[in-house]
């Protein structure tokens, strides 16, 4: 017998009037798993997410959290246990950053000292200096800062589950990438169960443990990013995953360290890549410098290996 999934959807359907937005989907998400929902616009991703915290009631099927049907849990109690972050942040404009973050601890009646401590901890964790930002109002923040506050607020009461609906969708590419990077690092530390909706396939591939492809209210395919890239179920999944760009997307999933050979003393230290950088980047560097081998240099500037184009071609990815 396997462990109870943290979140289990069993034949879940949502109808709005005559229209079926989500059609009998089944999905198990294990504790600590990062699950990303992708699919074309209107395919039911947000609806699926919002059924999990009962912002939308499912019409049919069952949703269980830790084995318990969510219909049995009071919606407000349920939502206080589940972090929720959305694209437009929805920060309260008349509350300061600190008060916004303290929202759920406040609802849960945490002692004041504990709340203050937690707010400070989260602000630091998300790179918002408390002395600078605690007393600011949302209107005084940049899009990226507001989104950090939104994530901090979702994490405030230390929920087991985090639902994120295109949280970085409205940000510029650079801010978005740095936030993705931070979220991935953060997830490495806090190991929440995350259900994440996005339109950005690179974002999905970078973050997901499990990738769920939806189309017209149904799940077309699910699995790890590598599995899906290796064997897309159909044309739709293949094109969603990037069509003929898939080779590079797959390379982006593999770290240099995986294909690294021992240090080659004859190689110059430039151009070089780091072992934790990905093969897509390595390919780009090779292409740029017109070389077929690269030195692999670690953070301290020491050579730790070499990378050969022939290994990339040899089916290592």
């Amino acid at each position: 017998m396997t462990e109870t999934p943290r979140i289990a959807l069993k034949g879940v359907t949502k109808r709005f009037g005559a229209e079926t937005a989500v059609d009998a989907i089944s999905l198990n998400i294990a504790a600590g798993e990062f699950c990303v929902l992708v699919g074309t616009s209107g395919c039911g991703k947000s609806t699926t997410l919002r059924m999990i915290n009962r912002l939308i009631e499912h019409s049919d099927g069952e949703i269980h959290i830790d084995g318990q049907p969510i219909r049995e849990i009071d919606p407000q109690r349920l939502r206080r246990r589940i972090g929720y972050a959305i694209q437009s942040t929805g920060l309260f404009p008349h509350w300061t950053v600190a008060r916004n973050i303290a929202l759920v601890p406040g609802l849960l009646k945490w002692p004041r000292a504990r709340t203050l401590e937690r707010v400070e901890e989260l602000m630091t964790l998300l790179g918002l200096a408390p002395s600078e930002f605690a007393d600011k109002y949302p209107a005084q923040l940049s899009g990226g800062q507001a989104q950090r506050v939104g994530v901090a607020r979702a994490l405030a009461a230390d929920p087991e589950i985090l639902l994120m609906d295109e949280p970085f969708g409205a940000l510029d590419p650079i801010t978005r990438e740095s936030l993705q990077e931070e979220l991935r690092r953060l997830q490495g530390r806090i190991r929440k169960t995350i259900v994440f909706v996005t339109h950005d396939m690179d974002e999905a591939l970078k973050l997901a443990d499990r990738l769920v492809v939806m189309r017209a209210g149904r799940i077309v395919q699910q699995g790890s990013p590598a599995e899906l890239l290796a064997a897309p179920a159909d044309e739709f999944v293949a094109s969603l995953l990037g069509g003929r760009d898939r080779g590079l997307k797959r390379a982006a999933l593999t770290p240099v360290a995986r294909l690294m050979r021992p240090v080659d003393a004859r190689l110059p230290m430039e151009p070089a890549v780091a072992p934790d950088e990905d093969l897509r980047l390595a390919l780009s560097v090779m292409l740029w410098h017109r070389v077929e081998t690269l030195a692999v240099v670690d953070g301290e500037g020491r050579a730790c290996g070499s990378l050969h184009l022939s290994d990339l071609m040899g089916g290592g990815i």
Partner: protein
Amino acid sequence: MSAVAIWHRYGRGLAPLLWGAGLVGLLAWLPRAEGFFRWLAPGARVVIYPRDDFTALLLNHLALVGVASGLAILLGVGAALVVTRPWGRDFLPLASQLAAMGQTFPPVAVLALAVPSLGFGALPTVVALVLYGLLPILRNGLAGIEGIDPAVREAARGMGMSPGQVLWRLELPLAAPVMLAGIRTSVTVGIATAAIGSTIGAKTLGDPIIAGIVNGNSAYILQGALLIGVLALTLDSLFEALTPRRR
């Protein structure tokens, strides 16, 4: 601190005090200002409105507007809240239409319509004032609540706030400035409209004005008009001071 800085800091709070003092001063001065008004209306036999004490008229006027505005606020804000609840949504279009329509209706018409059913005196005046004052409050109440970013509402619900918490911590504080602006319009218009109540026998600051028009005595008219004007300005500046400043 410079005078300018002091004004910026305390000016908004000071204005209603100054206007209020002006009003009291006016009440004290008017009965003694026979010389001035005789010069203004040389033909008249009596130049200071004799039938009632100005203070009594002012208090009565204020009481009428106070009762009417209180009811209008209760009904207007209440209705705005009811029709924006999930269970009251069905009535939202009706409420919006009413709020939009009301302003095209002149207050005199409301008064004229109230008399046949309610007779003369204070009651029809209050009813007319409530009906007329309700609409700006309802309209702004709806605008204030409907104007809240849906994402903020969604987040509030998604974080597990109860409907009551959403109302008290989110909707009312966010809608307050717009609501207050509606109440301010309603009360200011009410001060002026209440004077018309004198035509149907309510005791208000409109009495000297009506008497002045009937007897061709411009001194009476000026006395009533001065008091109404300064009263309206006092209350308006009070609202100005109460309105939270935008961040």
